[in-house]
């Protein structure tokens, strides 16, 4: 053995024996603009504060990646970014560690959005949008009015999916936002919602199947009243389309952060989740993307510019009218709800 390999071997041996000073945490996001926003606003500053080294992985299908890592016993990620329905699914399949609410502040999540396994941090809404040319300054003021086909005989477009729509149907039928899921959890509740949707079926000209399609319908004036996702309505509006929308009575979906079962740096992951979702950081996220913070404290102290509030699902002015989509309810009842919905469409 010549001297060069000997020295390099020695160097390797010494560096392996040295204690690791920086705690390393691996985070998995979907990447792209959204993943980058989460990095810039949330985990990069949090990691700096904690002195952590963060490694980033990107996966377009987080749930599939999580399942593969956990079931194969090769868990490489410590924090994973999922949608809340995926989070509920992952929890039901025991793919996530329970969140440590001694480290993470439990008061940072409103009651309706709470989860034991996947921490919800940002939000989007299923909203009412309308064509301003057809409806002028007098659009429906509530879901009850949206259902009033005598007052608003306009063509409607709804998603061909029970998700969010059955919650909206109950809101239109006078159910208080806080009671939606307790009503839905009775067999009559689901029937009531389906019947309510059936009542406006003759006025629904399109049941859309993709977000892009809903935006097109709004833009073309094919339908004047469209239930769609806020991002889609906002895009059409920003492009100069004759479109407006409201978060009043919206059904709010959330994205969340979870820790995979068997993660190598579990405690550090919990600490990083707590730090990266501090009010100032989730408020900062809205600089990049119109996903409103779940933590109500992010709306205090002017962390978010006033003119941006209109584009955020969780803005305080909408509180009390909107409903957080309940991922656990959907996990349990989704199939039955969708079946009842499909049967209603085919009648």
């Amino acid at each position, binding site marked *: 053995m010549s001297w060069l390999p000997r020295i390099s071997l020695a160097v390797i041996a010494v560096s392996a024996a040295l204690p690791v000073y920086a705690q390393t945490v691996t985070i998995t996001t979907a990447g792209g603009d959204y993943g980058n926003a989460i990095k810039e606003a949330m985990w990069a500053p949090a990691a700096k504060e904690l002195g952590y080294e963060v490694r980033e992985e990107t996966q377009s299908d987080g749930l599939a990646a999580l399942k593969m890592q956990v079931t194969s016993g090769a868990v490489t990620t410590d924090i994973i970014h999922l949608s809340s329905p995926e989070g509920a699914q992952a929890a039901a399949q025991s793919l996530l560690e329970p969140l440590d609410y001694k480290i993470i502040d439990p008061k940072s999540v409103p009651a309706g959005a709470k989860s034991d396994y996947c921490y919800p941090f940002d939000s989007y809404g299923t909203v009412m949008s309308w064509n301003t040319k057809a409806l002028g300054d007098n659009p429906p003021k509530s879901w009850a009015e949206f259902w009033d086909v005598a007052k608003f005989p306009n063509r409607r477009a709804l998603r061909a999916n029970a998700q969010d729509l059955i919650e909206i149907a109950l809101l239109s039928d006078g159910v208080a936002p806080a009671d939606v899921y307790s009503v839905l959890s009775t067999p009559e509740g689901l029937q009531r919602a389906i019947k309510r949707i059936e009542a406006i079926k003759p006025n629904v000209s*399109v*049941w859309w199947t993709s977000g892009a399609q809903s935006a097109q319908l709004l833009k*073309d004036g094919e339908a004047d009243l469209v239930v769609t996702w806020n991002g889609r309505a906002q895009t059409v509006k920003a492009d100069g389309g004759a479109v407006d929308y409201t978060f009043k009575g919206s059904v709010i979906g959330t994205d969340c952060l979870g820790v995979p079962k068997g993660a190598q740096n579990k405690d550090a992951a919990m600490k990083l989740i707590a730090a990266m979702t501090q009010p100032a950081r989730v408020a900062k996220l809205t600089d990049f993307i119109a996903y409103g913070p779940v933590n109500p404290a992010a709306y205090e102290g002017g962390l978010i510019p006033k003119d941006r509030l209109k584009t955020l699902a969780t803005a305080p002015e909408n509180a009390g009218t909107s409903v957080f989509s309940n991922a656990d309810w959907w996990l349990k009842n*989704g199939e039955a709800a969708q079946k009842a919905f499909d049967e209603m*469409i085919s009648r």
Partner: protein
Amino acid sequence: MSVAADPALAADGRRERRFFLSLSLPALFIVGLAAILPLLWIVRQSFLTTAGQYSVGNYEKVLSSGLTWSALATTLELSLGTLVVCIILGIPLALALASTRPRVANVLMAFVMLPLWTSILVRTYGWLVLLRRDGLINAALTGSGLTAEPLPLVYNFTGTLIGMVHYMLPLFLLPVYAAMRDIDTNLTRAAASMGATLGQVIRTVILPLSAGGIFSGSILVFIYTIGFFITPAVLGGGKVNPLSIRIERTLSTFQDWGSASVLGILLLVLMALIAVMFLTARRLMAHNKMGAAHA
């Protein structure tokens, strides 16, 4: 029978047949790999529960659901509707093409074939541009005062049917046109010289002699349209839901591979049934014709 009697010649024939069969082996292999294997996988999947056990539960679930039967009805309505419109539009068109000079007919045929060379997605969205409320057709109708309100031409059964007929018409036309082209013109002349009117010539000479082509075209239309997905998905507005859309939905919203496989098998059985029906009807017709000729 003298050929069969000569042993050397018979052996030669056998060798030749074997050689030609062996030439088809690569194709058979590909078909086996690309069609039969996945099919077997689907059959297996249809008997698997989500827990991974074998049972007929998926079949019970799918066959007892009203959604399956309403999707089946929609599928048949769409296929039959497309076939009827194709027959009404296609037979006169084939007649016209077969009776024009070959050079003109070739040019016209190229126009008929043009849509076949365009992607179905492009064509379907093209119809959307034409048929929607502020589309070209409705703009012309309301602009000229023919209708006060735009007509609901798309996002419903009508729009779906228009899109499907547009796709299927050339495929229907080809065998019908070929059959009509092959009719000996002496026969139509003879009929005319015997005092048959044009209608009688068409009814008694041309249609019976091109029945084979019309049958082939009809089978093609039916078998093709039973699996249509893009057209009803884009032009149906969520209200036209045949079996193909039911399958997609079962997969995308329920991730239920078992039930989706059952639906796929149902679709396959339906196609087989229809093919058998058509072929039997054709054999019966040919038989009757022969009987009539003998009488």
